[in-house]
């Protein structure tokens, strides 16, 4: 239907935000493009601006600056009802006095669709959401997940909807139903091919739902990419520790005259190129616990703790020397772990140098 493009989008909740004051802004200059029909996630900690971004796209908020385009149409000034956007909220919103049928028909009737068409659309969507048996019931009597399905259904019935936005839709759903509703979403996305944008602070939800995840922090996009990219090639240390469990190891390092990263006196091979240019900035070595392993020689460490997490064990080690930094390893079941001391090496393909937080390419 339409790709969604955000151009230099800024938003502040203050009446007169100051340009040079980052704290005044909820969103600071966002440029993003979401292809038509994709499943996208906005991931970030509370207060990072992801809900603000969602409300800007749906039109509930007007951006302070910047433009929003659906396809080639500039919708920045349009009201939510005119935008071909549906939104599902954190808490299920149903119209209590209406039946499930009337709830689903509400957006269509508001837009003056002829009644036979309304009935046909509602029946179709109800069948998809497994709500057909409840169509005649009062919506107020349904369980939280049933209500959330109605909220979703009110978005799906509209044939003109360009994208469906989800604002942490599983927050109030029981854990065992969360999984079911999530698979339902995934299934609907595949069947209908509608663009879906899913806001969450839960990395599992984001990574399992989306083809592309946008990680946000402090009102800015830190990285946008596939789940695999975010995992294997974090562009920023924030992505490194926010995604993954446990998060990425970050170790202060140096780059020598030859442009080789050195940590604890040992030269470390990395995937980062042109390190010489990064000298003089705050440098860190980033490597995920999955890509650290014990070896005969390398960086000397003391093993401090081993925790069994099922198919893996998480090993905490302390690097010998001044810093005594913590390095975590993920060791598969059955592989040996040194009793007290050993050496670790990093997989060069997945080890990067970060300068002031950003990965050196």
């Amino acid at each position, binding site marked *: 239907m339409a790709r969604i493009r955000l151009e230099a989008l800024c938003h502040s909740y203050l009446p007169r935000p100051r340009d040079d004051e980052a704290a005044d802004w909820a969103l600071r200059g966002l440029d993003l493009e979401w292809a038509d029909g994709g499943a996208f996630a906005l991931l970030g900690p509370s207060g990072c601006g992801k809900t603000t971004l969602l409300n800007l796209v749906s039109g509930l908020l007007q951006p302070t600056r910047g433009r929003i385009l659906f396809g080639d149409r500039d919708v920045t000034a349009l009201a939510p*009802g005119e935008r071909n956007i549906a939104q599902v909220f954190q808490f299920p919103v149903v119209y209590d006095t209406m039946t499930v049928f009337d709830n689903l028909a509400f957006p269509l009737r508001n837009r003056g669709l002829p009644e036979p068409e309304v009935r046909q659309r509602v029946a179709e969507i109800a069948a998809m959401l497994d709500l057909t048996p409840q169509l005649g019931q009062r919506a107020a009597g349904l369980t939280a997940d049933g209500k959330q399905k109605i909220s979703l259904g009110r978005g799906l019935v509209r044939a003109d909807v360009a994208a469906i936005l989800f604002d942490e839709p599983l927050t109030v759903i029981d854990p065992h139903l969360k999984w079911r509703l999530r698979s339902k979403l995934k299934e609907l996305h595949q069947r209908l091919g509608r663009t879906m944008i899913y806001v969450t602070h839960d990395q599992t939800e984001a990574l399992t739902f989306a083809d592309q995840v946008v990680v946000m922090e402090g009102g800015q996009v830190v990285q946008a990419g596939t789940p695999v990219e975010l995992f294997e090639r974090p562009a920023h240390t924030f992505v490194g520790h926010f995604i993954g469990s446990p998060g990425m190891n970050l170790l202060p390092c140096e780059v020598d005259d030859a442009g080789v990263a050195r940590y604890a006196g040992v030269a470390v091979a990395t995937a980062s190129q042109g390190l010489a240019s990064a000298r003089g900035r705050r440098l860190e070595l980033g490597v995920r616990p999955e890509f650290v392993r014990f070896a005969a020689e390398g960086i000397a460490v003391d093993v401090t703790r081993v925790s069994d997490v099922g198919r893996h064990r998480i090993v905490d080690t302390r690097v010998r020397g001044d810093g005594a930094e913590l390095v975590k390893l993920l060791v598969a079941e059955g592989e040996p772990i040194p009793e007290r001391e050993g050496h670790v090496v990093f997989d060069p393909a997945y080890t990067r140098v970060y300068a002031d937080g950003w990965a050196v390419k």
Partner: protein
Amino acid sequence: MSTRTPNQKAWWLVLPVVLLVAFNAVIPLMAVVNYSVQETFGNNQFFFEGVRWFEQVMQSPRFREALTRQILFTAIVLAIQVPLGVAIALAMPRKGIGLSICLVLMAMPLLIPYNVVGAMWNIFALPDIGLMGKVLNDLGFNFNYTRQPVSAWITLVAMDVWHWTSLVVLLAYAGLSAIPEAYYQAARIDGASAWAIFRHIQLPKLKHVLLIAVLLRFMDSFMIYTEAVVLTGGGPGNATTLLSIDLVKIALGQFDLGPAAAMSLIYFLIILLLSWLFYTVMTRGEER
């Protein structure tokens, strides 16, 4: 088999409340019941009369007229105050200094003693010197609440609306501010009109506070006494003699204790019955 040991000490803890309720409600009520079945000619001598006073009250045209006036008055003030209160609450600002000003203005009539309200409107509506009465007469209306029943009724209703609409406003406002923002957001996305938002979100969410508002306003307006007595004293003639006013005339004016007691009980039962009716009708169809 029950393993609980009976502990009768708890009765002592209930005793203060039982005593309070007894002296406050039960004993006075029983005294009224007592009077309602007896005749007295003074000297503290009483004779049992059975249900004679009840029959007399029920058959008296005077009671029926007062009851009709009472029902009419309550119906009019409810029909004005509830919609008006909701409309004002909807129009009130949601935040800022405007809200504080509105809330203070709304609370003001509720803080004025009843007899002062009556006196204020008594003067306000005087045709020769009162602001409202004078202006109405200068505009060409023939308005005199001490002589014309219609003028008296208009003044009475206007006074009650002025005095009590803010109660409905405050209750409705509290109900409105309890509606989560997401409902309005969802409605905007669903393309709902302002009327649809009111009809399908605000009104259903206000239902419970409105039930309270209707019950309170019904009971209070059905028992109105002080303001009406100060304003019109039941006149002109008997045009504004509502139930309470009539009751006081019988009990303290004529000193007919028996009929007054019987009338009190009938009055009480009517209020009880109508309150129950309102409650049942308004909560009908809700899941338990």
